[in-house]
Each structure stands twice: as structure tokens, then as C-alpha cells.
């Protein structure tokens, strides 16, 4: 009984901590976006408030809090007010199912006259064996937040922005889902944690029944599925409504799209949702294609072994230290991808709407389908000899 309480409370703290981590990363990302865009456009950006303008977002948050509340129209108050809450949910749930680091193994220990453990805490809010299907299902709920915001605002700009956003999201979800079939054929599992474990060590290829090891490359998914990586990356840009696919917010046509009528903290919640979606997208890409939390060439066990052997750590402490180190590795990969998101936004122009839909349906969908077929044929050919 007592040992269950410990496990449940640690898991609960983990749930809340990972959600708050996501929420706390958003101001940082907004800062990076503003400074990054300024850097790209050869201007200064926010640099007055605090060192490097870092506390600008804190000042903004306080300002947002003291904005006048504004609810447009008469009849759709509830939908208007619920939309920002719904916008938070998909990002938070999807981010919770991505493994942020190696599981922490706790040896049995004595405390308060009782024996506790051994425990194995996965470094993610919840681990289960249908990871991808869950993330795809939950992240498509984001379309509801947009539609609710557009419908509740009683404004034609909001409504058209919401319609465009949802049509775009569902169109690119096809290419997104199909580009993942190739990588699923290789890993043979839906579980994120298992996928990351499969990407440990150096690149190992199976050709005509014999195994070859390329010791100069890590065993990452991108080397098996380069085309799948490109399609997934492009589709995730469209899913997160980022430029070059930010048609819902095309400000020359639609003012600000679905959040035209929102202000203050309520608009901020849409930003948390959008940047949360970007975090999930970067986490997914690094889990599928860039080895997740793995350091290249070394396995998790080797890192734990290193801490035990050369630093004299106990097994529990070694596991904690390894998980912390690998969490930094994972965050480094995620931040690199997030920087690419921001970089692309301030570099490329926007698509026209018919070009956007053509790219999704007539280009990316057939390519993803071709990728699936080629992967299936290749695996069959290489493994069945």
C-alpha cells in the first residue's frame, strides 16, 4: 500500500511538471521567435526589458492580465470562452505521451521503516503501447478549438480563418499519417519508448539476410526513411499553421484569422496551444527520425554503466544522472527543430490557398503512398532471403 502511494504521487507530480514545462517553454519560444526574426531581418527586436529582452514576455503577460475583457456578439458567449481552453488540451495531452528521456530506475530503498520499490518511472506523463495513434487522434482535436473560436466570434474573418485552418489541417493529416506508415513498417511498434530504444547504437542494416554495421552513423530513423522525414516535416508545418502554410492567419486577407476577436490572456492561450503544437511536432520528429533522447553511438545502459564505474554512483543515482543528461540531449534536438520552424517562418513567403491544397493532396499524398510501397517492397526483398 505504502509503496503505491509513492509511485502514484511521483506520477502525479510528473504529469503536472511536464505540462508546466510545456507552458513555461512558450514565453521562451516567443522570445526566440521575436529575437530570431529581428536577427534575420537585420533589426534589434525586444532588447530593453531585462538582459537581452528576456523579461519582455513577463511584462507582456502582466499587461495581458490587465486588458479589458471583450466578448463579441450576443448568443455564442460559451463557445467563445471555451475555445481557448480547448486549444490548450491537444498540445498538453500529446506532449505528455512523448518520452522526454530514459526511464528512471529506482532501486529498493528503506525509508520511514518501510521498504519501497524497486520502481521504474518512465520520463513521460503516460506510457502506453498505442502512442502514435493517440497523438494523431488527440492532435486532430485542435481543429475543434479553431472552429469553436471562429464560430463563437460571430465575425466573418474569424469564421473563414477557422474554416481554412481546419480544411488545411485535415488535408495535411493524410500526408502526415501516411508518411508514418513507412517508419512503422521498420520499427514494428506504436510505442514511442520502444522506438527510441530501437534507435540506439550505430547504424545496423539488414541486406539479403546479413547484417551490416556502419559505425560512423547513428542508428536513427532518418537514414532508413529520408523521404518520410521530409514529408512528415512539411506536413507538420501545415499542421501547426506555421508559415509557409499560415493561410488561416493571412493578415492581408483575414486580419488575424480565428483569433481576430480575442485579446489579453485568452489570445495568449491560443499562442500556448500553437507553440505547444510546435513542441509536440519537434518532439515527434526527433522521436521518429532523430533517435529521440539517444546520444549518437552510445546506448542508455552504457551511459548508466559509465556513471557507476567511473563516478562511483549508486544505481539509482546513475539512472537519475543518465536520464537528466539524456533529457538535455532531447531538448537540444527539440530546440534545433524549433529553430528550423522559426527560421523557415521568416525566410519563405506564403503559399496561395489552391497551391496549398494541391501540395497536400496531389503531391505529398502520392509521394507518401509511394514511400510506403517502396519501403514495404524493400523490407520484403531484404528480409525474406
Amino acid at each position, binding site marked *: 500500500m505504502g509503496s503505491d502511494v509513492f509511485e502514484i504521487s511521483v506520477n502525479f507530480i510528473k504529469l503536472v511538471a511536464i505540462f508546466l514545462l510545456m507552458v513555461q517553454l512558450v514565453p521562451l519560444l516567443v522570445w526566440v521567435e521575436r529575437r530570431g526574426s529581428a536577427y534575420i531581418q537585420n533589426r534589434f527586436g525586444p532588447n530593453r526589458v531585462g538582459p537581452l529582452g528576456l523579461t519582455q514576455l513577463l511584462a507582456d503577460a502582466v499587461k495581458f492580465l490587465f486588458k479589458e475583457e471583450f466578448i463579441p456578439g450576443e448568443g455564442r458567449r460559451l463557445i467563445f470562452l471555451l475555445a481557448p481552453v480547448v486549444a490548450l488540451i491537444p498540445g498538453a495531452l500529446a506532449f505528455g505521451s512523448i518520452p522526454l528521456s530514459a526511464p528512471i530506475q529506482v532501486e529498493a530503498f528503506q525509508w520511514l521503516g518501510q521498504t519501497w520499490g524497486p520502481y521504474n518511472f518512465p520520463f513521460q*506523463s503516460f506510457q502506453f503501447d498505442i502512442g502514435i495513434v493517440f497523438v494523431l487522434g488527440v492532435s486532430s482535436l485542435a481543429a475543434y478549438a479553431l472552429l469553436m473560436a471562429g464560430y463563437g466570434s460571430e465575425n466573418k474573418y474569424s469564421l473563414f480563418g477557422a474554416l481554412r485552418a481546419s480544411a488545411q489541417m485535415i488535408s495535411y493529416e493524410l500526408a502526415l499519417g501516411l508518411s508514418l506508415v513507412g517508419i512503422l513498417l521498420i520499427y514494428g511498434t506504436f510505442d514511442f519508448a520502444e522506438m527510441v530504444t530501437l534507435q540506439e547504437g550505430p547504424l545496423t542494416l539488414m541486406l539479403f539476410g546479413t547484417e551490416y554495421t556502419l559505425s560512423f552513423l547513428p542508428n536513427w530513423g532518418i537514414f532508413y526513411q529520408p523521404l518520410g522525414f521530409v514529408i512528415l516535416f512539411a506536413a507538420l508545418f501545415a499542421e501547426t499553421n506555421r508559415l509557409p502554410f499560415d493561410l488561416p492567419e493571412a493578415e492581408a486577407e483575414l486580419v488575424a484569422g480565428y483569433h481576430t476577436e480575442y485579446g489579453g490572456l485568452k489570445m495568449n492561450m491560443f499562442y500556448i496551444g500553437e507553440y505547444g503544437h510546435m513542441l509536440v511536432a519537434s518532439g515527434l520528429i526527433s522521436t521518429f527520425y532523430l533517435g529521440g533522447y539517444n546520444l549518437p553511438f552510445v546506448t542508455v545502459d552504457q551511459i548508466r554503466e559509465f556513471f557507476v564505474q567511473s563516478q562511483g554512483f549508486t544505481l539509482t543515482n546513475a539512472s537519475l544522472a543518465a536520464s537528466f543528461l539524456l533529457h538535455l540531449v532531447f531538448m537540444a534536438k527539440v530546440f534545433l527543430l524549433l529553430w528550423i520552424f522559426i527560421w523557415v517562418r521568416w525566410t519563405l513567403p506564403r503559399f496561395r490557398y489552391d497551391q496549398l491544397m494541391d501540395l497536400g493532396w496531389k503531391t505529398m499524398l502520392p509521394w507518401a503512398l509511394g514511400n510506403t510501397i517502396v519501403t514495404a517492397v524493400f523490407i520484403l526483398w531484404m528480409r525474406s532471403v
Partner: protein
Amino acid sequence: MTELIPILVLLAFVAVFGVIIVIVSGLFGPKRRQSEITKAPYECGLPGIEKDNSKIPIKYYLTAILFILFDIEIIFMYPWAITYTDFIAEGQGIWAFSAMAIFILVFIFGLFWEIKSRALDWD
């Protein structure tokens, strides 16, 4: 079933967090009497004549229907994808591949029929 409990807990936590933010954002801030003009939907310099219940292109509806069709077809490939290597290991790879190949042919036929019938063209 026990796997779902953490998800529900997180869902409840996020929902409560969001509702608190929405309530707090209404509590602070200046309170002014809002006139009809304040409540009018945003418009760039013109009087807001057009309401949001104006006509919506049927294209969006068509896209949504086609999405449901294709999404179900794609989700159908997922179980096949994760069991594919198991089939190969048991020496039934050809069977597993050709079964899905027939399905993918139907998929390709449907996609090209849609493109041909201009269902995916935006003007």
C-alpha cells in the same frame, strides 16, 4: 483501463488551468459600459454589414468528406504496418504484401479518380 487514468487526470488539470485563466482574464482589467459599436464584429473601416452566416464554399464540405474516407483507409494500414515484419519472419511476407497491395491499388484508383473528376481543384 488503468492506463487511461493519468490521461483523464491531465485532461482535468489542463481544463481547470484553462478555465481559471479565462475567469481571471475577465476579473482584472478596466470595466466600461459596452455600446453597440463596441460589440460589433471587427471590420476594417466599413460598417459591419456582412454577418458570419454568409455563404460558405461547398469545397470545405467536400474536403472534409474526402478526408474521412482517406483517413480511415490510412488508419487501416497501421495494424498491417506493425505486423508486417512478423509476417515476413513467418515466411508469409508475400501474402501480407499482396493483400495490402490490392488495398493500396484501390486507394490509388480512388485518389486519381478524385483528381480526374476535379474534386480537389480550388479556384
